[in-house]
């Protein structure tokens, strides 16, 4: 072991395969989580539009509760409660549900941004309610929500390290394990941070371009 220098390039290379394996897990969880978030989020947004207060008031409370409490605590809670379910599954489901509460706001804003004339035109054409939603409103609303979806995908990607708490070996946990085994966190944790930056920064530039294009 080289005691003179704090940073050891050899060790940085040594840890890289572990981290890339972790990165792959991180990406899987982000994709699965975002699939849940974007579907469930849409259903929440649609349910919030129903006129019945008996449905919207409790739903709003649940959504606010999930949104305003730490996802880290929620993860550990569900993991301890459902001991039979593996951490990996708990991870993407809890992240997905948590982000669904954010996504529901994105959908709400997207639906409200569809001009009123579109509704009136659909009524004038004697379209059924279901057809109006499917053929007129949602295609326009979802276009409005794409940048929001992208931004939340990036932020979920950066929140997957919380899964270390439920012992899922994603990228951060892989780095931490390496550090614990070799008593040297310097290279491992620094590389983890740089890998996060290497993925999330280019992605955020892409999302920003999409935002400008769709605006």
């Amino acid at each position, binding site marked *: 072991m080289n005691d003179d220098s704090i940073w050891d390039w050899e060790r940085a290379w040594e840890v890289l395969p572990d981290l890339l394996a972790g990165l792959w897990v991180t990406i899987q969880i982000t994709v699965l989580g975002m699939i849940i978030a974007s579907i469930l989020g849409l259903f929440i947004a649609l349910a919030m539009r129903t006129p019945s207060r008996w449905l919207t008031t409790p739903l709003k409370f649940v959504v606010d509760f999930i949104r305003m409490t730490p996802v*880290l*605590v929620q993860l550990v809670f569900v993991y301890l409660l459902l001991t039979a379910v593996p951490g990996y599954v708990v991870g993407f489901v809890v992240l997905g549900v948590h982000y669904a509460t954010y996504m529901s706001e994105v959908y709400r804003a997207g639906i409200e941004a569809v001009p009123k004339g579109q509704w009136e035109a659909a009524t004038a054409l004697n379209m059924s309610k279901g057809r109006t939603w499917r053929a007129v409103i949602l295609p326009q609303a979802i276009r409005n929500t794409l*940048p929001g979806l992208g*931004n939340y995908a990036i932020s979920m990607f950066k929140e997957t390290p*919380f899964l270390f*708490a439920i012992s899922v070996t994603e990228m951060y946990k892989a780095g931490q394990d390496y550090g614990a085994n070799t008593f040297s*966190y310097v290279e491992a944790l*620094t590389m983890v*941070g740089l890998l996060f930056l290497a993925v999330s920064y280019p992605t955020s530039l892409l999302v*920003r371009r999409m935002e400008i294009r769709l605006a």
Partner: protein
Amino acid sequence: MGEDLQELIDRLPALGDAVLVTLEMTLGGALLAIVIAVVLGFGSRTQSLWVRGPSRVVVEFFRGTSLVVQLFWLFYVLPQFGFKMEALAVAIVALGLNYGAYASEVVRGSIASVPKGQWEAATALNMTWFHKVRRVIFPQAWALMIPMLANLLIQLVKGSALAYYITLQDVNFWTVELRRATADTFFSYTAGLIVYFVIAYLLTWGMNILEERAKRRLGRGTRPTLRETFSLKPPTNARLANTQMPAGGGAA
């Protein structure tokens, strides 16, 4: 259930200490974040590349690397370089840097959406740059940025739960201890989440009041109904809502 409740009541004094630790991190982190946000927000707007370049790099760096990584890096790695900080200081610095970077985008966006005529009018009145910003521009931008800063503040509270893993005895720690004592996961974690919810709710309420005051100072006060004051408002400014947010509570 009765025993659980008794255990909870016995642990109320400990809950007070735990909430205090969480609030220390929240307020410390928020104060650091707002200072960083204002400096970097204005830095990202200057003409000079020597100021704007580094500001952008710092903002993108702290937004791009995850909060978890930053916190543990400060806790495990920084001491190897000879800087040893107390755990509470590590948490405040990590939260402040991370959310400060996000908030700087909010500050930059809000300043950019103050009409240009306001700058020109202030220049015409021969105000110095600092005077212009303090008396004319910032008060208007401030009213715009509060709803989004409120979202970030909630994010910060939620992020502070991480501090349990660097030995701090916050609300998350209290929850884990309650579970250990009662052996009832559902009861203890529900209690812990409710505590976080109440903290977040009170902070949102405080920010709603701040927003109302800021608007009234600009002569745009709209005395809100009691219901509006107590509600959890999503951001109102559609144009600013598009500036990239972290997992924003209600940000769209």
